[in-house]
């Protein structure tokens, strides 16, 4: 079938991907590391967005899934000689299954009570990794052997960057696919209300568990890349504060929007560095809190929502008004 999209639309993926390809060639090693971290965050935040932004289930367990991925990669890199591809598959499966387990309470409770229950899973994860030290390295953690495909290994920062970019793009593709298909609409219905969802024939159980599973799998994938890029894993990297940091990034960027995760990831990685370079690193948490409060009041949909509004206005400019909008006055939505 011929591609009927306009040349501009066909070129758009190329224009969006070009910076990802060119950027690593221009950056110094520290900036390349920062760029890699942004891409890892993108994957993890998209995972959180699926469960929170799209299905409306508040979870603070995302750090657990990243931790599962990271520890799976660390353990496999030390005990097996498999490629990083196998690590990614195993980590995604384990983290996905763990996420289904974490999601089970969501079938009974919601809101703040569910958030507290998911917090309990973060604590449980911390207890497991510190208790079973013979496998996890305890509080000291584990060193991660470089992984890769044959002679191409993550010892080369460019490989780590490439891997993070491919997985971030995969996560972005996944969420774009979800956006306008029945699964995405089911999630939106569940987010709106269980009553609306069930009255449209949506199984709320299946939808919530699907959201948790996808969220967990993306967290697991992000964890594998994080482990290899960092070279070590410790329990301190997967606390409830790590989850809250992801949640802040998502809310700042914009929930339920593809580019929200990218904007949020860039914000939480680059802003602390910016403050450090300005010589006021301790000001970051204060400014961050103020920015968060301001954004929640001024633009509750996050930075991405403002960009979307501008885009919609430009697109709609010149559209003739629908006759229905003048023939059915009704009253404004209350």
């Amino acid at each position: 079938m011929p591609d009927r999209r306009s040349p501009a639309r066909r070129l758009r993926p190329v224009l969006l991907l070009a910076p990802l390809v060119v950027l690593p060639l221009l950056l110094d090693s520290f900036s390349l590391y920062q760029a890699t971290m942004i891409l890892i965050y993108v994957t993890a935040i998209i995972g959180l967005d699926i469960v929170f932004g799209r299905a409306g289930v508040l979870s603070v367990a995302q750090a657990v899934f990243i931790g599962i991925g990271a520890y799976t990669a660390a353990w496999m890199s030390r005990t097996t000689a498999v490629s990083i591809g196998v690590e990614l598959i195993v980590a995604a499966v384990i983290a996905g299954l763990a996420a289904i387990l974490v999601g089970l309470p969501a079938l009974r409770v919601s809101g703040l009570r569910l958030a507290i229950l998911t917090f309990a899973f973060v604590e449980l994860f911390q207890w497991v990794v510190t208790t079973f030290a013979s496998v996890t390295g305890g509080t000291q953690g584990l060193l991660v052997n470089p992984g890769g495909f044959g002679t191409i290994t993550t010892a080369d920062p460019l490989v780590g960057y490439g891997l993070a970019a491919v997985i971030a793009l995969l996560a972005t593709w996944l969420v774009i696919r979800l956006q306008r298909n029945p699964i995405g609409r089911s999630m939106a219905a569940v987010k709106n209300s269980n009553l609306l969802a069930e009255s449209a024939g949506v199984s709320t159980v299946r939808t919530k568990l699907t959201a948790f599973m996808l969220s967990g799998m993306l967290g697991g994938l992000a964890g594998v890349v994080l482990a290899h890029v960092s070279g070590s894993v410790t329990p301190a990297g997967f606390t409830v504060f790590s989850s809250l940091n992801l949640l802040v990034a998502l809310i700042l960027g914009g929930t339920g929007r593809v580019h929200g995760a990218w904007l949020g990831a860039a914000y939480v990685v680059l802003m602390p560095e910016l403050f450090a370079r300005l010589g006021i690193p301790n000001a970051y948490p204060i400014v961050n809190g103020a920015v968060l409060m301001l954004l929640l009041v001024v633009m509750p949909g996050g930075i991405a929502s403002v960009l979307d509004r501008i885009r919609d206005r430009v697109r709609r400019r010149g559209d003739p008004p629908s006759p229905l909008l003048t023939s059915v006055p009704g009253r404004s939505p209350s």
Partner: protein
Amino acid sequence: MATDKAGRPPAVLEVRDICVTVNGVRALGGVSFDVPEGSLFGLIGPNGAGKTTIMNVISAVITPQQGSVRFRGEELTGTGTVARVRAGILRSFQQVRLLEGMTVLDNLLLGRERFRVVGLLRQIGGSRTGRRQARRDLAVVEEVAAVLGLSDLLHRDVQDLPFGVRRLVDVGRAFAAEPDLLLLDEPAAGLDVTSRRLLLEAIKQAQRTTGATVMLVEHDVDMVRRACGESVVLSNGEVLARGTPAEVLADPAVLRAYFGRSDA
């Protein structure tokens, strides 16, 4: 369409002896009625009569303490909301419930959820069955949108639409599900006179086009009089009268329940 001995179409829904008590208060006390197939059936009654409660029982939002609901001769007691939707019983709500932040098209497509057969991986990766289903869904939704006059607005965010149009989208989602039985709970609530008239015409047109049986729950007797062939009147959780709108509105008991006197 097959008819019974009295020349009426067979009952698509049989409600028998439904009793519901909420927090010690009797909401329904032994309600029974039949809804003929292919009809636009009215369920009227003053506020607090139990209209929404009986809707909730039929759609399994609440479970009655007693009684049964049969759909096309099949006993539904014990089945959940999703199972009933998949069987073909759809409903709308008094309060408009839409996928906020999404387009009219997305909202109408949500109605197609009951036909979803493709699994997660195929939905994400794409499959021939999924694409065929998507084409069919889109065709049905576009047809419903054309009947309801929503074609120009398919790509508009529902948040940007006036209340009356949001009502139409809500009703349209239910019609997009190709329901066998559609329960509309006070669809005109909150609309002005002009919007009510247009909405009613749209509902009648969509009902004729799809052939669905529609149960219209209203407290506005004039709207039911204009639209429905047969009606049941509820009052204080009991069936007060049944028949054509003209018959029930001439019933002294109905006049007493609505106007407090029998000669209104």
